[in-house]
């Protein structure tokens, strides 16, 4: 059965806006924990000179990627930073010197086989650029003799409203994307690749179709524009028809799913050796007068972006890192951009407030029909209120990926997705 999903207003107003670099900020604040996995240990001290691409944080843990300086300048302070998860990590504040001197260690890596490829990807600091931030080298580190991978799914669905940064990657750097795809296919001996793009990006689809016309193994798949088409399990199913089961990684079904910007980055890294130090972000929302796509050094404060997009801090009622469906609220304009950000959205009070009050559940079943994992949010809510952990397990709460579809469709305005997240604490 095809994936159905829900219809959202796309608001892709920045789809045609060329990515522009922002003026170099005076300081950047680089976090030692930017995605899931172990935080990095500091490699620099206060007063040290650093250059662009210089490694400033690393960890011996496998589930971790090194962190590099995005600017050249001097380490001013090292401070504690409170993450959204409630944990505290170290943050390096670097004063820029304006020269953006590239570090000598930035050299194209020597890659000859899968092992050296995985090592290079780890050294690049690359993590999933779609938002979840799973370290890429772990995805690629599969035993292809034991578990061959036959399909590479490139996720360019970008189903969240407003965000167009992946769309711009396809339009502005299609050759990088294709080269990245071919590199991954080569080292992991993957037969076929599917570049999956939602139909609401016709220009990107056209460009990719032209560029891959002579490549038999790379297929451009145009997907229904419905949410959450870009969820890993959904996009893998849409491309290959295979269902990734509970607790399984895509590789168990012979699939690797990579975000399109990740593929483009891998290609550039193999050519230049420049690690992940800048991100393309979509700046949008009704509190920004100039919605746009920008290239931003990792560690830039959100306040710089608010100024760049002609937004007034006083007019912003809600500030989001990510899309409106799964993005996280920011509460501080000094928050730094991390590797996994792909959008900063700012809304005025008009759009930020939920106006409708919560009313009784009328059993309409819209949440059940909307759930991409075919869960029953209304039953999960009841089980959570009864604190019934066994029932929550039976209803497969663990499969909820917090896409928010249930909350979105609920006519009684229940916070179903939030309840699921709270309920997860009961079954841990």
């Amino acid at each position, binding site marked *: 059965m095809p994936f159905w999903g829900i219809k*959202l207003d796309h608001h892709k107003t920045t789809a045609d806006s060329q990515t522009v670099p922002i003026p170099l900020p005076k300081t950047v604040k680089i976090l030692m924990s930017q995605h899931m996995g172990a935080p990095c240990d500091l490699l620099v001290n206060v007063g040290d000179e650093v250059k662009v691409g210089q490694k400033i944080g690393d960890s011996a843990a496998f589930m971790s990627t090194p962190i590099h300086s995005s600017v050249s300048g001097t380490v001013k302070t090292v401070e504690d930073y409170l993450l959204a998860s409630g944990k505290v990590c170290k943050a390096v504040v670097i004063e820029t010197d304006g020269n953006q001197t590239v570090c000598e260690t930035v050299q194209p890596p020597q890659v000859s086989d899968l092992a050296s490829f995985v090592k290079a990807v780890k050294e690049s600091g690359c993590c999933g650029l779609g938002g979840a931030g799973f370290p890429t080298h772990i995805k690629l580190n599969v035993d292809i003799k034991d578990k061959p991978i036959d399909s590479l799914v490139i996720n360019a669905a970008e189903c969240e*409203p407003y965000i167009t940064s992946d769309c711009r990657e396809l339009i502005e750097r299609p050759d990088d994307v294709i080269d990245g795809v071919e590199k991954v296919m080569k080292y992991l001996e993957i037969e076929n690749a599917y570049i999956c793009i939602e139909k609401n990006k016709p220009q990107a689809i056209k460009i990719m179709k032209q560029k891959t016309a002579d490549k038999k193994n790379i297929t451009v798949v145009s997907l229904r524009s419905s949410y959450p088409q870009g969820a890993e*399990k959904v996009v893998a199913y849409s491309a290959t028809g295979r*269902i990734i*089961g*509970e*607790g*399984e990684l895509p590789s168990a079904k012979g699939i690797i799913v990579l975000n399109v910007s990740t593929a483009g980055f891998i290609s550039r890294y193999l050519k230049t050796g420049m690690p992940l130090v800048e991100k393309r972000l979509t700046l949008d929302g009704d509190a920004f007068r100039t919605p746009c796509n920008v290239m931003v050094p990792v560690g830039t404060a959100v306040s710089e972006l608010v100024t760049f997009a002609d937004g007034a801090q*006083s*007019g*912003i*009622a*809600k*500030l*989001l890192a990510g899309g*409106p*469906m*799964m*993005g*996280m*609220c*920011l*509460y501080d304009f000094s928050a730094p951009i991390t590797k996994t950000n792909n959008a900063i959205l700012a809304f005025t009070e008009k759009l*930020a*407030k*939920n106006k*409708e009050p919560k*009313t*009784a*559940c*009328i*059993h*309409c*079943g*819209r949440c*059940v029909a909307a759930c*991409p*994992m*075919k*869960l*029953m949010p*209304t*039953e999960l809510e009841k089980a959570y209120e009864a604190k019934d952990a*066994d029932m929550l*397990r039976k*209803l*497969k709460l663990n*499969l909820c990926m*917090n896409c*928010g579809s249930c*909350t*979105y*469709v*609920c*006519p*009684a*305005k229940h*916070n179903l*997705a939030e309840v699921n*997240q709270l309920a997860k604490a009961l079954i841990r």
Partner: protein
Amino acid sequence: MDKMIVSPSPHVRSGTTTAKLMGHVLLALFPAIVAATIIFGGRALMLVGFCTAIAVVLERICGIIMKRPDTTGDLSAAVTGVIFALNLPPTLPFWVAFIGLFFAIVVTKQLFGGLGHNFANPAIVGRIVITLSFPAAMTTWTEPFTADVTTLATPLASKSANMLDMFLGMTSGCIGETCSVALIFGFVYLCVMKIITPTTPIAFVGTVALFSFIAGEDPLYQVLSGGLLLGAIFMATDYVTTPVTQLGKFIFGIGCGIITCVIRFYGSYPEGVSFSILLMNIVSPYIDMLCKTRPVGAKKPSKKVKEAN
């Protein structure tokens, strides 16, 4: 802003509200009300207006007494009032209708906790209470386009009505049940606006047609006569008292169809639609329990987990 709003995702919501859904149901009922006014005259329209107003007033009074927030704005009481009225003979005394509404809104709905908590469709319970309590008033029919009160049987009982008359509603019967074409308009509207899925009505009507055919009755006659279309389209699709999943709705519809036919063909009442829906309302939670969705890629719990529990 001095302080920014921090809330969990998602940060956008659809514009659909309970009140809007109920508003669509009222709109879908509009053709039936218009048809009833044309066929049975102003008295029928007055009864519809009376029932709607009383339903809303009773809902509000309950809210005040029970210290609950005002829920009349969600329009569910208005929907109950209209559907209840459409299930009444055109000449029914207002005070009888009031008793039915009392059992619908106060007993069935509010005493069980208000919208979302009632186990049975309020309009159906109200109707059954007065059918059993006032059998004479509830079987006094009017000829279409006249004010003549008749004790003649409805087409369902007489089995002699013209098919086209039944389709257009030019027969005697309850206010809203006779005009099939108006009800079908409402059905199409509800499906197009995605207020309901067609599963339950199709399963219900289909089962009645099939059962009738097997039992040697005329399927089309059985479908068009009595309150089947009104019940299948507007009462068997009530969100609160019917199953959530499509499979559940399908089973619910089949169950309604079988019970309706059993009562019609072998029971002592000429009509079984409201009884069938009430009985299936009662088993709805069990249908829901049996018809849970199967989550995508879910593993069956392993033996170890079972033992641990």
